């Protein structure tokens, strides 16, 4: 069921929101034990929301553009009085005293929040294996990961638990799981979706974005949640394009550039590369021009990211100290208590990144590591700007590989980090990008995602290109 159709039927009174919800809860009951997409299924709250939507329709009121649409939320978004864990022991049982702005906007649009989805702890990871509450399994092959860190949200949509989900993307955490699970996942331009109520990982990189089964649904979801928010001082005040106005406008005359450094490199599966080429061919057939383009500094994106993101994370995660909320560890004095709280409460990947970040920022090393990475970030922004002088949008793989098997990349942290090589540059530049399913691999039948990249505030344009690709793939 498409979200757009559900909303239209519910608003017109043709279908009850409660019936739509119950259908989805049945699917969840059937498969959730296998998939483990959720940390929490909000049966009672969802039923109350759905009933409220039906009551509004019965009273002649319009519940909003997402009327009665079930939606799953990554468990790093604050839902007032409802446990929000970030899949970490340190926040087990914590009930936020406020709703994230995106959550408030979803309620106002008539959406029905069906549950909180699993993630890599504090959004740090690319497989959802780093969750303190057990991994999520790829619904298309339970032996494989769904990707991460928004693995639960991607899996929920892929398994039919909800037509829509929200995730967060700091280095690819929406786009990569979308590619691995065969759904649409998009990271909006930095600053367009409020981070108020999104538990912070890396504040200059984090952005909330939509998961859906098709491009129109994803664009509709983003349209509902984005826009200036006074509660987020990094929120862009104006200049938002219309996302739905020209979705089927096509790609005639558009200049598309395949990013060499992200596509023609070792480590990208041959079939993934072939999918990008097929996508390029389809765009040419639809009237676009395609060429290869070099964006040289993107080669250093991974390394800059693994200095910048952990540095910001080490600062953001300093608040988990056992004082005001969350887990408290043993200790007769404050320092011991802090250290035990954090050591017992955080998993190994989170500790690793806090250590990395603290070191990169510490006296004597700040300039060589963090300072240098920030300068490389400027080079990446400049190289992209140069590319966008000649091209309207860019193309690349989303993930270098199809979904890998559990345990395949957990022994060497670096091999896991390489999963994000194609997605990271967009976060560093603050730009937008979307992953569209484009075929499956010939050996395992697992989905391949192709990434369309756009400059800041080109969100409507990349949705348009994604829609053209989606049409060509069917």
């Amino acid at each position, binding site marked *: 069921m498409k979200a757009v159709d559900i909303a239209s039927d519910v608003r017109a009174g043709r279908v009850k929101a409660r019936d739509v919800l119950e259908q989805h809860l049945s699917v969840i009951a059937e498969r959730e034990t296998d998939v483990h997409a959720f940390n929490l299924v909000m049966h009672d709250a969802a039923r109350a929301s759905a009933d409220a939507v039906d009551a509004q329709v019965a009273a002649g009121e319009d519940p909003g553009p997402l009327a009665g649409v079930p939606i799953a939320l990554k468990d790093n978004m604050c839902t007032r*009085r409802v446990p929000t864990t970030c899949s970490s022991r340190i926040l087990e049982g*914590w*009930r936020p*005293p*406020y709703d994230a702005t995106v959550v408030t906007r979803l309620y106002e649009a008539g959406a029905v929040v069906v549950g909180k989805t699993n993630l890599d702890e504090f959004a740090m990871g690319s497989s959802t294996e780093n969750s303190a509450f057990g991994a999520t399994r790829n619904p298309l092959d339970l032996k494989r990961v769904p990707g991460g860190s928004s693995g639960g949200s991607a899996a929920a949509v892929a398994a039919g638990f909800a037509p829509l989900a929200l995730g967060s993307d700091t280095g690819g955490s929406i786009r990569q799981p979308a590619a691995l699970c065969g759904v649409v996942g998009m990271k909006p331009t*930095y*600053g367009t979706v409020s981070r108020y109520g999104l538990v912070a990982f890396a504040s*200059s990189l984090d952005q909330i974005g939509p998961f859906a089964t098709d491009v129109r649904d994803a664009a509709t979801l983003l349209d509902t949640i984005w826009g200036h928010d*006074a509660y987020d*001082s*990094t929120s*862009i005040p104006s200049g938002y394009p219309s996302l739905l106005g020209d979705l089927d406008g096509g790609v005639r005359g558009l200049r598309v550039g395949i990013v060499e450094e992200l596509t023609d490199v070792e480590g990208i599966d041959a079939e993934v590369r072939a999918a990008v080429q097929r996508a390029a061919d389809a765009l040419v057939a639809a009237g676009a021009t395609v060429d290869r383009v070099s964006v040289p500094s993107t080669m*250093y994106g991974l*390394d*800059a990211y*693994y*200095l910048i993101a952990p540095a910001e994370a*080490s600062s953001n995660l*300093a608040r988990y*100290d056992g*004082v*005001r*909320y*969350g*887990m*408290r560890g043993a*200790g*007769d*004095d*404050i320092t*011991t208590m802090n*250290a035990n709280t*954090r*050591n017992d409460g955080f998993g*190994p990947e989170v*500790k*690793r990144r806090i*250590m*990395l970040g*603290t*070191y*990169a920022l*510490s006296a004597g*090393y700040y300039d*060589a*590591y963090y*300072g*240098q990475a*920030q*300068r*490389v*970030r*400027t080079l990446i*922004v400049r190289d992209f700007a140069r590319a966008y002088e000649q091209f309207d949008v860019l193309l690349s793989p989303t993930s270098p590989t199809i979904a890998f098997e559990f345990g395949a990349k957990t022994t060497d*942290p*670096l091999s896991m*980090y390489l999963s994000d090589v194609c997605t990271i540059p967009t976060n*560093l530049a*603050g*730009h937008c990008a979307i992953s569209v399913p484009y075929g499956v691999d010939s050996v395992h039948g697992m989905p391949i995602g192709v990434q369309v990249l756009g400059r800041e505030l080109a969100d409507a344009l990349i949705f348009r290109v994604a829609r053209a690709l989606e049409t060509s793939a069917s």
Partner: protein
Amino acid sequence: MTNSPARLTRADVEHVAKLARLALSEAEIDEFTEQLAGILEHAASVNALDTADVPPTSHPVPLFNVLRADVVRPSADRDEVLANAPESRDDRFVVPRILGEAP
């Protein structure tokens, strides 16, 4: 062009763990020394780039000093906030001793 810093040592890891308030076990210190040294060596490839006249980017959006009017507005509900506290008393968070000897 900056020189790459020296390889990460066990002593560095112990020091950073203290800064980050992480009570790592001996085994964790060993494991992290190896893993972090490897990651940092890889990440230090950024030192190969010539960035002599390049300003750092800390943030992708050119927004500065985003302020609001200095007007009192409703804030968080105190009881709801304190309900999450591991330990609280009289509207305050209770913590283990911070300074000096135990009372």
